[in-house]
């Protein structure tokens, strides 16, 4: 039905039909859509778990589900959202689709490996899904030992294997991006002419390739202990439980940047296009991505401040954690400065970009709170931390992801989304998000521990506010799902470059031809040079 709209021109959607043409495709654009479909399913699944969690927490007593079920709900919420939605979401969908196009390439460097990556994610996802359906897992998405290796009676191994397998999807995607960026840039596309979306995906890919093997090793060790009782983490077998936390966070902290760096890449595109100005301090923003990728590997110990880590390690990790704040701050300031004397459009993607900057700022600043040792001791493992990382991952990553989807939707489908509904949903999501998660900062500072099924009465008012916010948020998330599908048939037909953007992906028809470009583009100017696309000049400022 997508293709009915533009029957006259061959594009990547209508050049072949049938299920095989999708499941065996080597086209990065089609694989991007396969990913979009897959991660959306996991988002809905994770969202369903979150819904049940929020319903349970309406009352202090545990009267909606049992403690066992509750523990499984928050575990599966985390597993589905982190490993099968947030990590693949932006790189594997929008990154897959647009990274090659933005550098003027016909595809990724290894199209077959790209397809394999998707299959690995699906197989890993099915493993974890099987575990969820078979009875669920109750360890928390963090799988802390020795609970996960010795004490839990739930589907730890199946879930962990699912994560193990999907990790290779992430590694291969990263590898593909690195090689593609190095080898497949169009003539004239120098490093300093690359869109910032590409820079941030390049930084992300480095983390995927260097960090993900560590979680793979950790899962193998967990497997050895749980199945063969080889003492690694369980002290009764001669192991050290805290070792697991070091290994887990050595990957899982950088993984936060796998989730947020691509989001920053999208926001850089959006802020530039909808201000019609080059990003202020392009080089600083580009290098800030690289700095975050490198520094992100040096701060894992800040998750262990009360986990019997030595006082001096804690001091060092606290100190280093503040270094990550600087490149993030640089990005926020540069995005803001880009608006200065710009030509600012309030199209939906820009609203999401504003939303991202605002929420990421709050998430980032509260990150400074929890990096302060004396403060963290009080709030670690409370709702303060829950609120903090949801501001980064939901307020940051999902806002940017939605902004990116709206921005590139005309390119992907050849159709425009309905602008009015989209603006409304962006507003609802922003308000719903804040109502859901802001009360959790207060809850956490008051001392409400996370992962509590039953809680003391005095926390109820804040929990009710949070649940109310979650229902608003759910409406906000459902709306794009509906109108995106609606737009496939009824949306306005999109032109090649509806936003007046400079990226190479906009210099080709919507939807793009099978090989992206009819003629290999030759790049002669920097990214974001709007004089090349806006014909008639009107001075503003």
């Amino acid at each position: 039905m997508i293709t009915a709209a533009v029957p006259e021109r061959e594009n990547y959607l209508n050049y072949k039909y049938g299920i095989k043409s999708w499941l065996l495709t080597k086209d990065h654009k089609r694989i991007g859509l396969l990913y979009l479909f897959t991660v959306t399913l996991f988002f809905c699944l994770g969202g369903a778990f979150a819904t049940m969690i929020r319903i349970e927490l309406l009352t202090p007593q545990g009267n909606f589900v049992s403690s066992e079920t509750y523990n499984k709900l928050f575990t599966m919420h985390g597993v589905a959202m982190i490993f099968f939605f947030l990590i693949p979401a932006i790189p594997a969908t929008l990154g897959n689709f647009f990274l090659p196009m933005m550098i003027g390439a016909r595809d990724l460097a290894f199209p077959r490996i790209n397809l394999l990556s998707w299959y690995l994610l699906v197989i890993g996802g099915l493993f974890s899904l099987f575990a969820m359906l078979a009875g669920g897992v109750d360890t928390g998405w963090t799988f802390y030992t020795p609970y996960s290796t010795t004490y839990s009676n739930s589907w730890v191994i199946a879930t962990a294997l699912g994560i193990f397998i999907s990790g290779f999807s992430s590694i291969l995607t990263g590898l593909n991006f690195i090689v593609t960026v190095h080898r497949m840039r169009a003539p004239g596309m120098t490093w300093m002419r690359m869109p910032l979306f590409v820079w941030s995906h390049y930084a992300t890919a480095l983390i995927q390739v260097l960090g993900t093997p560590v979680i793979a090793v950790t899962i193998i060790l967990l497997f050895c202990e749980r199945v063969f009782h080889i003492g690694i983490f369980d002290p009764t077998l001669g192991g050290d439980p805290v070792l697991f936390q070091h290994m887990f966070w050595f990957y899982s902290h950088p993984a936060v940047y796998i989730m947020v760096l691509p989001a920053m890449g999208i926001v850089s595109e959006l802020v530039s296009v909808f201000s019609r100005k080059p990003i202020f301090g392009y080089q600083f923003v580009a290098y800030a991505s690289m700095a975050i990728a490198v520094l992100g590997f040096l701060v894992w110990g800040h998750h262990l401040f009360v986990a019997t880590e030595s006082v001096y390690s804690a001091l060092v990790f606290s100190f280093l954690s503040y270094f990550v704040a600087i490149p993030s701050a640089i990005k926020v300031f540069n995005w803001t400065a880009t608006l200065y004397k710009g030509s600012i459009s309030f199209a939906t993607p820009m609203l999401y970009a504003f939303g991202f900057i605002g929420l990421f700022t709050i998430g980032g600043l509260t990150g400074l709170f929890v990096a302060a040792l004396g403060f963290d001791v009080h709030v670690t493992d409370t709702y303060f931390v829950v609120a903090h990382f949801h501001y980064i991952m939901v307020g940051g990553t999902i806002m940017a992801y939605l902004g990116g989807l709206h921005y590139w939707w005309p390119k992907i489908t050849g159709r425009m989304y309905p602008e009015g509904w989209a603006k409304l949903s962006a507003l609802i999501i922003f308000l719903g998000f804040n109502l859901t998660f802001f009360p959790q900062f207060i809850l956490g500072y008051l001392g409400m521990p996370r992962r509590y099924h039953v809680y003391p009465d005095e926390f109820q008012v804040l929990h009710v506010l949070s649940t109310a916010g979650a229902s608003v948020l759910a409406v906000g998330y459902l709306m794009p799902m509906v109108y995106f599908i609606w737009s496939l048939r009824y949306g306005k037909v999109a032109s090649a470059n509806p936003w007046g953007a400079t990226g190479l992906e906009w210099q080709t028809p919507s939807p793009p031809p099978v090989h992206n470009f009819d003629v290999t583009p030759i790049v002669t100017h920097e990214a974001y040079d709007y004089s090349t696309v806006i014909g008639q000049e009107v001075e503003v400022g």
Partner: protein
Amino acid sequence: MDKLPLFPEQASTFAPGVDHLTYFLLAVAVFFTVLIFCTIFYLAIRYRRRSDKELPHAPHGGMALEIVWSVIPFGITMVMFTWGASVFFNESRPPDNAMPLYVVAKQWMWKIEHMEGQREINELHIPLGRAVRLTMASEDVIHSFYVPAFRVKQDVVPGKYSTIWFQPTKPGKYHLFCAEFCGTRHSGMIGWIHVMEPQDYQRWLSGGAPEGTLSESGQKLFTDLACSNCHKADGTGRCPSLEGLFGKTVQLANGAKVVADEAYIRESILHPAAKIVAGYQPVMPTFQGLVTEDGVLQLIEYIKSLGPKPVVGGGGALGK
């Protein structure tokens, strides 16, 4: 406002310090959030697109600005680091005269052992104004001892001892939470800290401990487990004498030296082969599975009571 508190109660010497740090962090966060929000709002309105054809010409880079907005935030974060670190450093160093207590965490309860022999479950009675130092062990998984009103938290990790200390400043009843997910009834692993006026506490203490002091229980266990068959007081046994052991430096068979603290004694009971004292054979069997974490703590207290003198911060209330 009873139903909607915004700040937790301050009931320990740490609480005001942590809250002052929080005020500072909040002030910085509010300042920058308002700054960014207002700037974006102003710029977005001021420079809104008026014609679809317009093409702005404006600076898109400035070294001076980049330096300013890197260096100033860095300076502020270093204040945060230093302040947070100093609060933390205090929290990690219990005073010498702190009253020792033992905590054993297990799924899903907190067991408290007083030196005088009182035992409590999910309740902890302590006197007002006195520093308290808890030595904590876990029977199973990782737990975390968390008292929001005191602003303290410490994981309790199986296989090792961790310590936490605080000094209550306000009589009352405060939540004790397990903050590290520990299984099905994690949210039921909660209790109360009762901070009592010193005279009330003394009255509570004299309520009696049917089983004698902690070290007396340890002595009984020492005999029951037949430890005394080999660990003879005069040093003639197959194993080293434990008289005056605690706090001393021990020469090991492999040439290393180790201070006989709680962790060393615990290890020697549960994993005797790990560190062999110079001049002795590795003949001791493991007592893992035969003696609980509570039992180990009692044995440690007994060994401490064998003199010569308790180490700093260790067994201050011994032999009462």
